[in-house]
């Protein structure tokens, strides 16, 4: 890890513990589940915390706009259906350009990253993914102006998918 990266990581860690300033407070309030656990322990994997930091950067994801459709409970963790729906305009001026699907307890946190063109006119992606065990799942959508939107759901699986 480079010095710069180390410095940034330590700043981020401290920020989650010491709520300094309105900006950090707002970030914690809005994105508490991801940031608050960054300091350690809990059910969020280190991998997940790193992935979240990489994607979010200095941005402040806000809830809403993006919807993560997953079953609340599913028998087979090998193939859990998901649908990511963003309720936002899709024009050249303003469009969703990237959607990330993240798991908090799989060996690999990033599940998929989707890149969308404004010419699609709508932002909706579906598929099937693996869940090693019951866990929270996150979706992050990025608009072309850098705005970030987040949604989170808990999925219970009866049989974990070997990931």
């Amino acid at each position: 890890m480079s010095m710069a990266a180390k410095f940034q990581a330590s700043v981020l860690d401290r920020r989650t513990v010491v709520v300094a300033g309105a900006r950090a407070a707002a970030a914690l309030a809005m994105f508490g589940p991801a940031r608050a656990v960054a300091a350690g322990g809990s059910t969020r994997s280190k991998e997940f915390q790193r992935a979240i930091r990489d994607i979010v950067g200095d941005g402040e994801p806000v809830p809403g706009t993006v919807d993560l459709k997953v079953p609340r409970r599913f028998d087979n963790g090998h193939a859990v259906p998901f649908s990511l729906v963003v309720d936002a305009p899709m024009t050249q001026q303003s469009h969703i350009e990237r959607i990330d699907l993240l798991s908090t307890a799989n060996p690999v946190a990033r599940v998929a990253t989707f890149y969308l063109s404004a010419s699609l006119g709508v932002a909706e992606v579906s598929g099937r993914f693996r869940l090693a065990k019951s866990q929270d799942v996150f979706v992050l959508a990025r608009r072309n102006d850098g705005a970030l939107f987040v949604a989170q759901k808990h999925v219970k699986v009866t049989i974990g998918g070997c990931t």
Partner: protein
Amino acid sequence: MRNPRAKIVPSAPSIGDVVEVKTLITHVMETGSRKDRFGKLVPRNIITRFCAEFNGAVVFEADIFPGISANPYLSFKMRVSQPGTFRLTWVEDSGQEAQYSIPLKVA
């Protein structure tokens, strides 16, 4: 990696309608963290990239990780502005590619 396929729903949309492009491919999506019955790690072999072009322009792409299920099903939606052809490409770890083309017919 075999049998790439796709379906457009509805199959004969009008201009302005939203269609869903449903894609499927047969692939083991071996994660690389699974052990065989001798306790040896099974080497990773997954599809890492999916790309959809419409009339030569990229409209949808995906970076894919081991968390995507075997025989990956992926779908995306598009508002129809003109007829044309989707060219779909899947790329696996080995660099090998699979392709499928499907026309978008407008009623």
